[in-house]
C-alpha cells in the first residue's frame, strides 16, 4: 500500500477553484518534489493535504496509509502522521516553546496509547535534536518563533519534524527566505530525516533546494494540475527553460 495517494483531487477556496484534478502517489521512503510557478496551487495543495479550514475539497480523495483523511480535522491528520513545515512559520507570543513542543509530542503519544513523556527526559530529547540543527538553548526557551530570524524559524520547523517523526512530511517552500548557509543547514536536517519509513513532499518554486534535498521524482504543477512528471533531471530542465511552455503540455 502506498503511503499517500492523491486521487483526482479538486479543491477550492472562497468559491475559486484552484486544484483541477491532481493524481499523485508517494511510497514510503520516497521523496517527491512539486515545482510550479506562483499561483499554480502549490500552497493550496499543502493546506488541502493538511486539512486547513476554508479549503474545500470538491472532488477526489486523499488517502494516507489507504485511509481517506477528508473527514479528518487538521489535528487528527497531524496525529495520523502528517506534518506540514510552513512556508511562513507563525509567531506565538505567550506560548512557551518547550510547552508547545511537549504538547505536540504528547498528543501523538496519547493517540498511540503510549505514556506521555517525562519533562526532564523531554528536555534532553529536544536538546539532542536541536544541537544537530544549530538551535541554541536560548531559542528553545523563547515563545514559539518569537524573535526568530527567517532561518531560525525554518530550523525550528525541522526540529518539530524530528520530534514528531511523521510518516509524511510536507515541506512548503522551505527554501524561501533562506540564504545559502541556512539552506544548507535546513537541507542537512531534512536529509537526516529521510528514511525508508517516511515519505516527503517537497514543494518549491526554485530548483536550488533540490540540489540539497535530492528527490526521487519531480512533478510540475501548473494551473492546478500536474502537467509533467519525471526524475530529478526535470528540475534541471525547469531551471534551464523556466516554466513557460510546460503548462501547455497538459
Amino acid at each position, binding site marked *: 500500500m502506498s503511503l499517500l495517494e492523491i486521487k483526482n483531487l479538486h479543491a477550492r477556496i472562497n468559491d475559486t477553484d484552484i486544484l483541477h484534478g491532481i493524481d499523485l502517489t508517494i511510497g514510503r521512503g520516497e521523496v517527491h518534489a512539486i515545482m510550479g510557478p506562483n499561483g499554480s496551487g502549490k500552497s493550496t495543495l499543502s493546506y488541502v493535504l493538511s486539512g486547513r479550514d476554508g479549503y474545500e475539497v470538491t472532488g477526489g480523495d486523499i488517502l494516507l496509509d489507504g485511509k481517506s483523511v477528508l473527514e479528518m480535522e487538521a489535528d487528527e491528520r497531524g496525529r495520523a502522521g502528517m506534518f506540514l513545515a510552513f512556508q511562513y512559520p*507563525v509567531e506565538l507570543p505567550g506560548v512557551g516553546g518547550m510547552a508547545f513542543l511537549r504538547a505536540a509530542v504528547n498528543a501523538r503519544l496519547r493517540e498511540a496509547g503510549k505514556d506521555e513523556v517525562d519533562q526532564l527526559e523531554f528536555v534532553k530529547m529536544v536538546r539532542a535534536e536541536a544541537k544537530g540543527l544549530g538551535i541554541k538553548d536560548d531559542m528553545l526557551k523563547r515563545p514559539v518563533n518569537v524573535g526568530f530570524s527567517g532561518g531560525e524559524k525554518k530550523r525550528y520547523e525541522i526540529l518539530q519534524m524530528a520530534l514528531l517523526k511523521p510518516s509524511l512530511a510536507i515541506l512548503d517552500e522551505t527554501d524561501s527566505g533562506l540564504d545559502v548557509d541556512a539552506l544548507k543547514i535546513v537541507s542537512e536536517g531534512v536529509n537526516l530525516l529521510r528514511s525508508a519509513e517516511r515519505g516527503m513532499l517537497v514543494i518549491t518554486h526554485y530548483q536550488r533546494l533540490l540540489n540539497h534535498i535530492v528527490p526521487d521524482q519531480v512533478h510540475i504543477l501548473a494551473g492546478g494540475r500536474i502537467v509533467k512528471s519525471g526524475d530529478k533531471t526535470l528540475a534541471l530542465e525547469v531551471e534551464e527553460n523556466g516554466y513557460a511552455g510546460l503548462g501547455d503540455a497538459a
Partner: protein
Amino acid sequence: MQPERLYETWADRKEAAQSYLEAVNWPNGQTEAWKFTSLSHLSDVVLNPPKRSASLARDARLDGEVLNFTAGLAPDLAAASLPKCIIATDISADKAICHKAFALLPDNHHLTALSASRQTAAVKIEVAGPAKINTPLILQFTDGKTDEAAHPFVFIDIADGAHLHLAELHEGASSLSQPLIFVRLGQGATLDHIKLQDESDHTTHLGLTLFRLAGQANVNSFSVSKGSQITRMETHCFFAAPDAQAAMSAVYLGCDSQHHDITTVVSHEYANCSSRQLIRGVLDDKARGVFQGRVRVAPDAQKTDGQQMSRALLLSRDAEADAKPELEIFADDVVCSHGATVGELDETLLFYLKSRGIDEAEARTMLIDAFLVDTLEEISYQPFADFLRGQVSGWTARKTGVE
C-alpha cells in the same frame, strides 16, 4: 467638575448622599460615567439590609488571615487572630472615622454615595510599620440572599514604611454587592493587592477600591473579574505626594450574558509618579466587556509616567467589547500612553497548533492563556500570582472543554 462640598458631620454627608441617590436613582446610559453599564435593573430588585447567618470556614486556597464579611456584615473582630501590627476595629458606631475617611473620597460619585447612605459594615484596619508582615490579610465577602444588598466599607490605613499583602475575595450571593475598600498608604508604604470577583450569577457587583498614596508609596494591584451577572469593578488611584508608583492591572473573563465593566481613575496630582495598567479581557457567548480608564495629570505633576493598554479577545461573534480611555493631561513634561484593541483568536495560529496534532480545545486554551500570560506576570507577590493564575486557567479550561 463641581467644587467639593464640605460636610460638618457624617450625618450631613449621609443626608447629602441620600438626596444625591434620590435625584439620580440608578444610573443608566445617560450618565457619562455609566455610559456602558446601566444599573436601571436594580429599580426592580428588592434590596433589604442583610441578616446575619453562619459564616463560612476559613479559606484554605490562599494562605493568610481571613476576615469574613458574611452577607456584607462585619466579622467578629474579637475572634480574629491577626498579627500584632494589624489592628482591626469596628467603626460602624464611630462615625467620626468614617467621616474623615470619606472626606478623602470622590464626591458626587454613585458608589461613594451608596456606601455613605447604606453601609452594612464599617471596619478600620491599621497596619503599623515598619515591621514586614508576611501573612496576607484576606478580606472575604461571602453569602447573602437574593433579596439582600451588601454594602461593606473597609478603611485600611498603612503606616509610613509599612507593608501589607491584601486580598479581596468577592464570592457572595447577595442581589447587590457593593464593597468599598479604601486604602491609604503612608510615606514609603507598600501594598501587594489582589481582588477576585467571583460572585453568584444573580449578583450585581459594584466594587470600588481606592488607593491614596503618600510619597514613595508603592502599590501593586491586580483584579480578576469572572463571576456575577453585572459587574462594575472600579479602582481609583490618587497620588497625594511625589515619587509614588502604582501598577493596577486587570483581567476580565466573560461568558453567557455576563457584563464586566473595569473602570479605573488615576489622578496624578504630584510630580514624578508612575502608573501602569494592563487590561485584558476574554469574552465568549453574548458577554460584554467594558474598560473605562481615566488618567488625570495635574499641571504640577511633571515627569508623570502613565501607561495604559487594554486588549479584548472575543471568542464569539455575539460578544462585545468597548473601551473608553480618557486622558486629561495638564502638565507638559510627561510620558503618557494608552491603547485599546479588540480581536479574535487568529485562525492561522490555531491551524499551526492543530497541524502539530494538538486538538482544537487544547490549542484554543494555549492561545487564550498566551493572551493573558504577560498581564498575569505583573503580579509581584508569588502566592497571589499563583492563586489568580489558577483562577484564570480554571476558567479557560472550562471554557474550551479541556477540563
